[in-house]
């Protein structure tokens, strides 16, 4: 297991040096927020946040509890639509189209922008198999061959297939916590999202399971754009290309992970990553 940690280190080989975030060509940006503000009633969740997310990169959102990371993340696939009090201002551009435009159906957005939550959320009455293909059945795919194929692929991507291949029909709740979380990831991946949002996906997992999820993020990066919230700064450093630091609803600093951790531009960032608060 230990040897597998290696790939996370940001190596200075040619193809994975993240480009500096401020000279991006427009083509490269998959998702972008412009002056995004989320208010709960009159209280600000996040204020005026603009971040571009490049295609096939991992961006970590860090910051102390209550700093607005989750609020920000949930704005990216319109989960705030479900909270009566929450009000979103500004724009979230998915491929240069604002997902908050009146003619956009949030259901379609959520199929393109998948989400994995802090706690594993398998549907308890469904089998492992049915959990994975739940999203596919929503879009009307009933063909058993396709479902089987996608189920195996998604479980493989989530590094769970080998553990469950003999009991795909058993209840999802029979899995361990770490397996359930990987199942939740497989379920999100099965619908082939373009962007995957992860809200502290490893916070309820043991180190072993955490490691597997981190490996997984590294593999997934080849195909999709990932935005991950984490409280663990080592994790942010291990898995992400870019990091954004939030503090009380404001975006303090965003940049290439390596430079943000080694050479933060703002005092608050430095204080946080060196453990002086938060």
């Amino acid at each position, binding site marked *: 297991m230990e040897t597998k940690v290696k790939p996370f280190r940001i190596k200075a080989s040619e193809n994975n040096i993240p480009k500096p975030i401020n000279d991006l060509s427009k083509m490269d940006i998959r998702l972008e927020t412009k002056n995004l503000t989320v208010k709960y009633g009159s209280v600000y969740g996040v204020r005026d946040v603009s971040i571009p997310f490049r295609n096939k990169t991992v961006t970590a959102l860090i910051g102390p509890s209550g700093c607005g990371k989750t609020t920000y993340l949930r704005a990216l696939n319109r989960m705030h639509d479900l909270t009566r009090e929450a009000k979103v201002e500004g724009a979230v551009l998915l491929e240069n189209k604002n997902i908050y435009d009146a003619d956009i159906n949030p*259901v379609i957005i959520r199929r393109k922008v*998948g*989400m994995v939550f802090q706690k594993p*959320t398998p549907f308890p009455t469904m089998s492992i198999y049915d959990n994975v293909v739940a999203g596919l059945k929503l879009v009307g795919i009933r063909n058993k061959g396709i479902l089987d194929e996608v189920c195996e692929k998604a479980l493989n991507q989530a590094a769970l297939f080998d553990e469950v291949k003999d009991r795909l029909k058993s209840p999802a709740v029979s899995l361990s916590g770490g397996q359930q979380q990987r199942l939740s990831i497989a379920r999100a991946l099965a619908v082939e999202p373009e962007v995957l949002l992860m809200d502290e996906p490893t916070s309820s997992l043991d180190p072993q399971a955490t490691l597997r999820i981190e490996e997984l993020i590294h593999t997934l990066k080849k195909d999709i754009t990932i935005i991950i919230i984490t409280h663990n700064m080592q994790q942010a450093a291990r898995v992400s290309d870019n990091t954004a630091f939030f503090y009380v609803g404001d975006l303090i600093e965003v940049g290439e992970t390596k430079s943000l951790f080694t050479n933060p531009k703002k005092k608050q960032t430095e204080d946080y990553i060196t453990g002086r608060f938060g």
Partner: protein
Amino acid sequence: MKPEHQKDSKTSVNEVQKLPNIIYLWLGDKIFSVVVVLLGISIILLALGMAWVLLDEGGLALREFGFFSFVIGTTWDPAVQLAFGAWPFFFGTIATSTFALLIAFFPALAVAIFSAEYAPRWLAGMIDNLIQLIAAIPSVVIGIWGIFVLAPWLRDSIYMPVYVWAETNAAGLLPILGNPIGYGMATATIVLALMIVPYTTALAKDAIKSVPKEQREASWALGSTRWEVMRMAVLPYARGGIMAGAILSLGRAIGETMAVAMLIGNKNTLPFSIFGAGATMPSVIVNEFREAVESLHLSSLMAIGFVLFLIALVVNLTAAYINRKLSIGGGQIL
């Protein structure tokens, strides 16, 4: 030696507090436990006592006919033969309440889903209050409404047209349809359905409300529409509570007396027909109790009460079992 933080303080907690006396410490606790235990046991004794009285008073009839023969006996003749069999009422009870549940269940579930998930807050609150209001209407009032409004309406706009149609087109159906006078099994079933809708709705709503937010969000995040969230995450999670609530409502329908007695037509002999008169266990008890002069007749009514008690017990145990069997995590309502 005192701990560090107490050294300098002038008054330590031990000096200030008065130790409660031994009577308070020992006896107070004992008295409280005894009172609580006695009250708890009294509920059990009350239930057992009621069962015992019914069994004891009904013993004459049960000994005369035998328990099983009494339940499946089809003759109920308090006037001439003095033969008593509970089957017509048993059948009438099960038929009316089961069909009432079948009629009430889906509309009630729909109302529960609407008020829990779809309705804006003010409307949901209004629906809840109205549901409680319906549940609070005394059943004799519903009975009167049934006699003067519902039954005539059903007779004129449903029973009669169906009967007239059947007379010319399907004469074979006439015995099954029965006399469309307006007071009978169908009317009683419909009124029962109306009366249990509030219970089914309230219990289903509780079950739906208890589904964790995470489950809904997981389904939303997959790109579910509202209805798909209900079907994928909410209803499966809440199914234990919903089903248990339905069974409990069935229990209420089985025990409902007054409105049924006023609307079912009260006929003691099989066969019952859809529109025609019938009877249920509670209705026969309330109708005949005052006039039961023969001790065997009175005892038979008591025995019916005992059978009803057993049915209620079975229904409640079933509801508890289903709730436990089907519920997930916090989804239990019982």
